């Protein structure tokens, strides 16, 4: 019985990975004899990657980027949930503020870059500002939406149980809106990673985005590729970590949905 379960587990993971493995092998084989400047052999890319990022000190660039990302994403998440909750709580104020918010929301943050650089210079503050400015929206709008969608009977129940306004928010509204808040945070995560790189592409002296751009300008195409691969790995790790957190935070939701589906 347990043997069969283990076998199924192994098999499902094999199935999950075979396509990725095939692509890697294909890339390795097809690029092996490549003489193209733009598509160097995978083997060479990986050797450079090892030399630069594992042995060498290119990691500095990564830490610099991740620092900005961590601060920017945290601020975006907190501000997004906070402002979303305030817009929900003070509906009439929200009605007045919303048009402005939506107006700012539709401006591509990349378009604001020159202005932000002009105002804030090219330091960390500018990079964090750009990340926050772009990443705050998905969380904010999802929080607002999720809180507005809380079942009115749950709010009646809160009243019937004599909950204070604060306790109602903590015990009922936030958990009930949590699936949507998490969806917002996940979207914000992706946006924050994108803006982390974008903020390093203009007027920057550090960061992984700077590394990639600078390598390309030096015509060090292999190095450029190593940066891109590291970036992809970092993005994947962040996503995996997020999903792990989500599984803990939304365990009740995932469980309830599974029961629902079974009928």
């Amino acid at each position, binding site marked *: 019985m347990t043997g069969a379960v283990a076998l199924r587990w192994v098999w499902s993971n094999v199935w999950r990975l075979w396509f990725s493995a095939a692509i890697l092998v294909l890339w390795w084989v097809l690029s092996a004899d490549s003489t193209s400047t733009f598509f160097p052999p995978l083997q060479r890319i990986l050797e450079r990657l090892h030399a630069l990022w594992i042995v060498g000190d290119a990691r500095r660039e990564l830490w610099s980027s991740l620092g900005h990302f961590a601060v920017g994403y945290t601020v975006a998440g907190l501000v997004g949930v906070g402002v979303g909750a305030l817009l929900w709580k003070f509906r009439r104020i929200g009605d007045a503020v919303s048009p402005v918010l939506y107006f700012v929301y539709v401006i591509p943050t990349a378009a604001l870059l020159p202005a932000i650089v002009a105002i804030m210079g090219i330091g960390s503050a500018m990079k964090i500002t750009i990340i926050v400015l772009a990443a705050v929206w998905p969380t904010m709008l999802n929080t607002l939406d999720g809180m507005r969608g809380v079942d009115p*009977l749950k709010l009646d129940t809160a009243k019937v149980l004599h*909950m204070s306004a604060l306790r109602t928010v903590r015990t*009922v509204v936030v958990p009930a809106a949590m699936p949507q808040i998490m969806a917002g945070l996940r979207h914000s995560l992706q946006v924050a990673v994108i803006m982390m790189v974008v903020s390093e592409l203009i007027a920057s002296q550090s960061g992984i985005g700077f590394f990639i751009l600078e390598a390309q300008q030096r015509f060090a195409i292999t190095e450029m590729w190593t940066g891109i691969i590291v970036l992809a790995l970092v993005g994947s790790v962040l996503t995996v970590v997020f999903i792990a957190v989500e599984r803990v935070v939304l365990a009740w*939701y995932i*469980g309830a949905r599974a*029961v629902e589906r079974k009928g």
Partner: protein
Amino acid sequence: MARPDPSVAASERAGDPVLSVRTLAKAYDAGTSRENLAIAEVSFDVAKGEFVCVVGPSGAGKTTLLRCLSGLLVPTSGEVRFEGTPLRAVPDRLSVVFQDYSRSLFPWLTVNRNVAVPLRVAGVGKQQREARIQEVLHAVRLGDVGRSYPWQLSGGMQQRVAIARALAQQPDMLLMDEPFASVDAQTRFDLEDLILEVRRELDITVVLVTHDIDEAVYLADRIVVLTGAPSRVQEIVDVPLERPRTQLGTRSSEAFGRLRRHLMELVTTSS
């Protein structure tokens, strides 16, 4: 006009009513062109320890009435007094059980933590809280399910959790809105008997809104029959069936049949 004044009849019965409803009226969108009168005039009293059912044809504003009685909804005119005090918000000594347990329970909290919510609100200490949780779960005949989540339980068990949560703060009165309408027939019988036992053991006053006439006759000491919307009290029917009641014995008795027939006539003619 030959109809007896229900409020007089009720006050004769009880010197000191737990719940007193006087000429209650509720209109939605009052004062606008869309004004919609849900309750025209409803008056009745509920004595301490009494089990009163409210029945009426569908769309008779039963849920609106219950929301007014619980303090969730402010009536357009008239007054509801709970233990002598006019209702402003939901009174401390009153608990409400809603029909849909899947919506009223908090799926992100375990059974224990769901039941603990009113105790936490009241600032009950941890040890007392845990003891009380065991007590009420036992009172609703729920065994070792405290660590489960509500959605891991059957519908009938979930409604038991909702009842346990309502009982946690030792209320004087339980207000129930079609509490057994979302479970299957067998579970429904079980829950009806459960609520009768709980009421006997805890000596609690119960007001239960239902559209099911059989259920009302089986459970109640008195039944308030509403007319169709806008609702008024059509008649208040005494149910002198002896207690304890049993599903088979009580429901097959002649007196049960007569009451049932009388109520059917009232409800079908008024809709």
